[in-house]
């Protein structure tokens, strides 16, 4: 079985689902055997999921519209 260090070297691509079938097999085996890496993988995957589904930093229209209106007003007056 691969070592934790080897697991961590592939970890970023594993999270991104960008490893070849052969590498995936090694990583899955490691995760099933090593508790620390299992926890790391599981919680990291959950982190990514929470972050991508959080709709963070959405600019509400109530904020963006006045900004765009102000910009357009300035451009129009600058024009005339």
């Amino acid at each position, binding site marked *: 079985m*691969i*070592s934790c*260090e*080897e697991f*961590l*070297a592939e*970890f*970023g*691509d594993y*999270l*991104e689902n960008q490893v*070849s079938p*052969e*590498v995936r*097999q*090694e990583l899955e085996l490691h995760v099933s055997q090593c508790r*620390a890496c299992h*926890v*790391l993988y*599981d*919680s*990291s995957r*959950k*982190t*990514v*999921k*929470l*972050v*991508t*589904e*959080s*709709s*963070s*930093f*959405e*600019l509400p229209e109530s*904020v*963006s519209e006045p*900004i*765009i209106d*102000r*910009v*357009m007003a*300035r*451009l*129009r007056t600058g*024009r005339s």
Partner: protein
Amino acid sequence: MSFLGEVRLEEEFGPFAAFQEALGFVPNLLYAQTLLPRVIEAQAKLESAVRSPGGAISRVHKERILLSIAADRHDTYCVALESKVLSLLGMSEGQIDDLLNDYHRADFPLADLALLQFCLKLSRYAPSMCSEDIEALRACGFEDELILEAVVVTALAVYRCTLSVGLGPEADFGPRKLASTRIAPPRDVALHIPSPGIHEAARNKGPYVPAPYLSSKTFGPFAIVQKSHGFIPNFFRAQTLRPDLLEAELEAVDRILLPEDVLTRVQKECILLAVSAANLNSYCVAMHCNLLRGLGMPSEEGDQIAVDHHGSNLSESDRALLDFAVKLGTRVSEFSREDVVKLQTLGFTEEQILECEVVTALNNFANTLQMGLGIEPDFEPPPDFENKVHLSGGAQPPIQAGGVVHLVDTLQDTEAGLVAQAQSGKLEAFEELARHHGQLIYRTLTAILGNPADAQDAMQDTLLSVFKHIDGFQGRSKFSTWLVSIARNTAFQRLRRGKHFESLDEAVCNEERDFRPRQVRAWQDNPEELYSKSEMRQLVERGILALPANYRVVVMLRDIQQLSTDEVARQLGLSVPAVKTRLLRGRLMLREWLSPHFMTSVKEIAQ
């Protein structure tokens, strides 16, 4: 004498001794490279790895492949050389003649013919290789290792033939006659893709041979690649079935590409990019675009070289260098001593010309290998290059995806139309663009400024700046990429005015150190159920704002704005590996930060 100068090297010069032992002589092709002994070492590494006994293909079979490809390319130098080698190995003159004139007539078993056919197709029409070609070999009983070897031998033949044309070495032995009735092989690979749709067929079917996992901890060469590239490209991972060949390749690559005593790294990467593009090799184009970005070249410049280097901002002499390399790499029949002289009159030294030729040969080696093994891409190639591949290949978009392709085109057309209108001063068009991309601009600003209130404040300045500079947008990158660069500039100006200035330079964040996770307690099963949607959002936002700026930007664009890693790299002018490193760091830090809110309680663990 060959086209370039030669110097005397000691008899004991290792590579020469190796050739002496393997062949009984040192080919003139190697003497023609004595201005740069390290490139001879590179070729010697490749040759001895390919020749080493114990592989799946016997020595005679390998030499036959080398001879057939040389004959197919009408490379008289390599034909004479290989014929001699085969006759030294005991093949009769009659058999050699058969092989030279029509290998079908030669009295070979069917399986041998199938193997030759495969190698010739790969050498001629690399972009049209597909899984059916591999299946044909498997049907003859050939196994994965043999297929890999056949591809590497073919790649070596292409390497040698490229060099022999570029160097014009004197024949080692009397020339051999090639029958005049032979059908001239197509030389311009890029123009001879047999049938439409072939790209689609070839693209999604690799990799063709399995690649067992090799760790950079136990396989030394991978550790070196990891260090020099920041990651291990699929190009190398795909060849792990034969670590010996892989190791030789890596040593050759190091000797040719890493030193900067003759041509610079950037010049060499440009050669690799331009010739790969002419060979329609999307994999290598994407790879070298990325490496160039890592070397500090703006992404639009690399993209431009991939599409047409004449439109790039390279110096006139560097563009001539690329013309030279592309001609040598793809239009062999047009190449002559004149081309060498032309570079000399532009001020290039013989060493530089030699290195350019070797880099071109290495490129063709790599292009052949990638196509032969169907190696999957690490990165996306520039969009304009993909269009070029479609146009020159005459390939139609696949029928099922037709609707989607059309939709994307329309969207892009609409945006291009809006940009053109905005450039001609139409404010309504600008307003629509501003509304459409507001979210991206806001998130970029928030990520850099680290504060939503400041970002809202900076929105107005950014939009005004976009309008002011919109004439400068030339359509060489995506409009959104250009917008992000304006937003970044606006944000940096604000930061410089303020006192808290965090640099986002590549050098500042130390990517070497390993990140050690501290939180090792398991998380609960359904963390999303623990908080309300708005609580969760606040929690994530606080966590992201707590990240260092250079990780924050990457996490924001990748995980919040949900752009692809390639797109993030393009927008931030970073290499993909640099983005990947920062993304992972950022995610892991976020994990640490969020952990206390989602861990299983101590009580649960005790149960």
